[in-house]
């Protein structure tokens, strides 16, 4: 099986043979990979030992090594072909939205529809975990729509505001 794995913006071509042997970018690697407990793995690569915690999170696989968390994407040949055909799935969409990062209560929306905002400007104040959190505009633009009002309780991932 051939895979293309991307970690921190760096891609590796990794091939796993039927007998379990493995190559990285065409070079052979001797790797002993064991599952120890749910999510907990041990890897011995050329005698170098690492303990890893690995979990699938959405489309990504999260790997924690020595306190460093890496989000990686693993595509097999078929998925790679699909991704090439659709020509990069994440294009520059015209609209950007501010989503609610956690459940909470809207305290204030200090902007209005039609107002120009700059990247990093506070557009919503959300109260959660006893703290008031300032949610910022992800980029420059004009406020297209505001979907919430002060005093409203909101769920995680709700779109609060769109900027075009």
């Amino acid at each position, binding site marked *: 099986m051939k*895979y293309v794995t991307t970690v921190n913006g760096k891609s590796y071509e990794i091939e796993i043979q039927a007998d379990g042997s493995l190559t990285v970018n065409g070079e052979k690697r001797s790797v002993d*990979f064991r599952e120890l407990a749910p999510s907990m793995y041990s890897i011995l690569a050329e005698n170098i030992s690492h303990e890893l*915690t690995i979990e699938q999170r959405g489309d990504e696989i999260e790997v924690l090594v020595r306190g460093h968390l890496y989000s990686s994407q693993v595509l097999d040949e078929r998925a790679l072909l699909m991704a090439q055909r659709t020509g990069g799935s994440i294009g520059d969409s015209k609209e950007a939205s501010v989503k609610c990062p956690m459940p909470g209560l809207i305290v204030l929306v200090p902007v209005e529809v039609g107002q120009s905002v700059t990247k990093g400007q506070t557009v919503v104040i959300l109260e959660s975990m006893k*703290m008031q959190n300032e949610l910022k505009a992800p980029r420059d633009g004009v406020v297209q729509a505001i979907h919430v009002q002060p005093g409203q309780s909101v769920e995680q991932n709700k779109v609060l505001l769109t900027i075009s």
Partner: protein
Amino acid sequence: MSEQRTIKKILVANRGEIAVRVIRACRDLGIPTVAVYSEADRTSLHVRYADEAVFIGAPAPRESYLKISKILDAAKQTGADAIHPGYGFLSEKPDFSQACQDEGIIFIGPNPHSIARMGDKQAARETVKRAGVPVVPGTEPGLRDEDILALAPTIGFPVIVKAVAGGGGKGMRTVRTPEELPAALATARREAESAFGDGRVYLEKLVEGARHIEFQILADTHGNTIHLGERECSIQRRHQKLVEESPSIFVDPDLRRRMGEMAVRAAEAVGYINAGTIECLVDKDKNFYFLEMNTRLQVEHPVTELVTGIDLVKEQIRIARGRRMGPTQSLMEPKGWAIECRINAEDPYNNFMPSTGKITSLNIPTGPGVRVDSGVYAGFEITPFYDSMIAKLICWGEDRGEAILRMRRALEEYTIMGVKHNIPFHQNLMNSFSFIAGAFDTKFVEERFSMTNYEDVPSEEELETAAIAATLFAHRQRQLASQVVTRGERDTSNWKWVGRWERMHR
């Protein structure tokens, strides 16, 4: 006041790591415990560790952990004859200490009078000032916005807006110019109203380049008041402490003696009994000012425990029983060095935004010199109702260098997956030259620290290892998934298959 009392059962009027911490001390002493829990906390760790647990209401603190009547009912129902309030929630409400007294329940903490005197920041300042303790200039509390705006120039900018009922950085704002003041007052009042149900605020002059150094106080009913040395709490963000240590690299034996004497005087000025903390600001020239007294156990009490060998919660219980406290003298020479990192469910890469959700993996560091006070476990769901602090990692070393190296090792071992947390922040901080050199003040994190400054660039080997591991993980999952599909290769039942086979061979 020195009659001895027995305590048969302790109710812990709190949640999270501090409730677990108090329950552990009770278990060490062989005293049965009662936990209280809100709807959001049925599966919390403190409920698991307590001998009994009583449901007290809806998740919002106002409906449960702040509801005095429900807590007292829980105590009566279970026969608890003492209550430990932990920190936050009801710990610094004089009404609560009073209500316990009225019901004949021992409140493990100071009497209502000292809480009220120290809790009212203005009365506290006046009281300690009379005892010869230096204080920071400011306004009286509870003024209307117009009056505060008028008084601000007489104090001189920059100033801090503080909530009268404050604590933990809630309802606090730094203001540099008169123009910013109205908006800061509004935000502070809103935050204070929702956190404490009290929107009153006051102003205080901001001491620039200041360190936040506090002294641990213990006082018993036999007339003994001592201090247990200082804690350095200057590593903070938005007035929330993130890292604390004891001793402070800034405090020499002479300063420790002078500040310690001042702290004992301040506590004695209100007739303080039990454990408490005198918070001070110390400027570059080692001038110190009384800031406030926290009339409760502090979040960061473990660093003092590690350099004194004293279990502060056990001492609190001993004092509440009317006994003499264990230590007899103020601490002049701490043993070794202790550092605490607060582990918060907050994303350091995204403006420390709180993170909620299920903790999917958890592996707690152990080994020499490492202590973890945690309120969570693998599978636990972090809800948005309470503070984002989920655990404290405390490391001890012979000296500060060893404590920092241990902290780095322990942070590497600490595994928390499923929610965003601030361990990467602590890793970067422990690598920062300014922190290692001890060159920081209360503005260091906000103004001079960046996550990218000290981030180790991941090594080629580590990146490749992560890539290989992720690929093998995905490969195995794919194999497992395909096995499920291929299991029924004969697409009919075995009985049918045997039937056909037999017919074929007839």
